[in-house]
């Protein structure tokens, strides 16, 4: 059984994102880039499923420019077996991304596709669900626990009301939440080893995926800033202030 995992290159979660003054987007030059934190968790989960004897191969895939290979190498160093780079310099939106993953799934025939619940740059939270729809596969989103038994997966999902458990037949798409696991640290020898692991490059056209009608970003601006308030010196002062505002 194969597992396919999505790995997206995004601005590191520690960076304070700056919006460009001309409204054309955010500053990306010279900014630290990393693997989407949710995708690290997805890679880790795939490796654990394999280590438990429930899968033979973990394939990681990314869609994006040449530089994304850096994140593929990180995933290979974590322990993935091989990587696929769908190379494009254009912005890929979730519907196109899902179509690309569908084409990869048709080619590779994985039993499980693990994606992050959301990419922390665009925060769309769409790709896994769209892929589920296009493949007519079950979806189990926002997973905080995944159990594989034969041809089914039992998934605990973090939802607004608490924890929901779904049982789905494989093949299935699973999107992972933050509490699923803690990704392993990559050791230096693994980084060396990862350099020799197979990394295949292809284009969106090679996969026969056409661009669909997309969302146009007209402008990007900085959000309205909250006014910094005041420091109070005592609980009494705080209580007075809140009472004046009618809040307590």
């Amino acid at each position: 059984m194969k597992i396919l995992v999505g790995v997206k290159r995004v601005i590191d979660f520690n960076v304070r994102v700056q919006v460009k003054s001309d409204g054309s987007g955010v500053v990306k030059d010279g900014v630290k880039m990393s693997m989407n934190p949710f995708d690290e968790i997805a890679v880790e989960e795939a490796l654990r499923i394999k280590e438990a004897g429930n899968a033979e191969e973990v394939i990681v895939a990314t869609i994006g420019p040449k530089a994304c290979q850096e994140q593929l190498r990180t995933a290979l160093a974590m322990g993935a077996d091989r990587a696929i780079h769908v190379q494009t310099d254009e912005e890929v939106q979730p519907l196109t991304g899902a179509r690309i993953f569908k084409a990869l799934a048709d080619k590779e025939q994985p039993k499980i596709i693990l994606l992050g619940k959301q990419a922390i740059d665009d925060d769309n939270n769409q790709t896994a669900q769209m892929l589920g729809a296009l493949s007519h596969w079950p979806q189990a989103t926002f997973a905080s626990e995944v159990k594989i038994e034969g041809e089914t997966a039992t998934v605990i999902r973090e939802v607004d009301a608490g924890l929901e458990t779904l049982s789905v037949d494989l093949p299935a798409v699973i999107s992972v939440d933050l509490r699923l696991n803690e990704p392993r640290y990559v050791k230096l020898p693994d980084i060396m080893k990862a350099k020799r692991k197979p990394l295949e490059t292809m284009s969106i056209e090679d996969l026969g995926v056409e661009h669909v009608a997309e969302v146009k970003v007209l402008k990007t601006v900085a959000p309205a800033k909250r006014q910094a308030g005041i420091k109070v010196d005592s609980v009494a002062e705080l209580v007075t202030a809140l009472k004046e505002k009618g809040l307590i």
Partner: protein
Amino acid sequence: MSKVLVIAEHDGTNLNGSTARAVSCASDLGLDAIDVVVLAADGSAVAEQAAKISGVTNVLLVQNPANENAVAAFLAPQIEALAADYSHVLAPSTTFGKDLMPRVAAHLGRPQISDIMRVESSHVFDRPVYAGNAIATVEAPEGLVIGTVRTASYKAAANEGSASVETRSVEVTLPTHTRFVELASGGGGDRPDLQAASKVVSGGRGVGSEENFKHIYSLADKLGAGVGASRAAVDAGFIPNDHQVGQTGKIIAPDLYMAFGISGAIQHLAGIKDAGTIVAINKDADAPIFEVADYGLVADLFEVIEELEKAL
């Protein structure tokens, strides 16, 4: 005629407050009609509640035993069958809507606009990106618009409507590949729902333990407030996941938000940007939470809670 269809969120008995907020967003579109669809096993009580939301034209009630629990793979094909009559289909951007709507959109070959926070025109919307550190104005392509509504950006529509309720049968074959097993609720007890609460008391890693969280609960109960938490507090097992506030938890907009022992990471702040008044109690004067707090108090949180309880 352009009409918008809003997907109701409910638990079989009660309509979730996020639905009336999504209806507010739908009103801003200024279209000819707003319909709400209730997909349920037995949904007449929920449909009656939806009919009271001001601005709603018709409530469609689609009953099917498969709708007992909100499983996206079952709900999506039914919504797709209804979508043909509409120019827009919206759902709240809660875990319910986030799970469901992209599945609907992809089947229909449409992109989705996630987390709509402002309607500029029928196809142009503002939405937050980068944990709310940037706001993008995006234009959906011509034709059907599928979107989720950032509920913290909208006040709930009033409760003075009298829409008609119409039972609809939707003939679609549902998949057999997914089974609902159970829902274990986090156990917020009788406290107000975090996303609807007008006051929220929140605790972070600084609270120190599950045991210590009783101080947070006790203050919340005194104030009639909901209880929130940072990711660090949830990860450490101090409190269940459904209390997490932030980029990957709940986005909330209470009138009063009180943060105890929370440092104010960007991912946490993403969840409270729309709060009316933010109060922060932290023993570190340099904690970033003070940059957004209306009232900051540098002090030990346990001492402050004790004094507050006495003062209230």
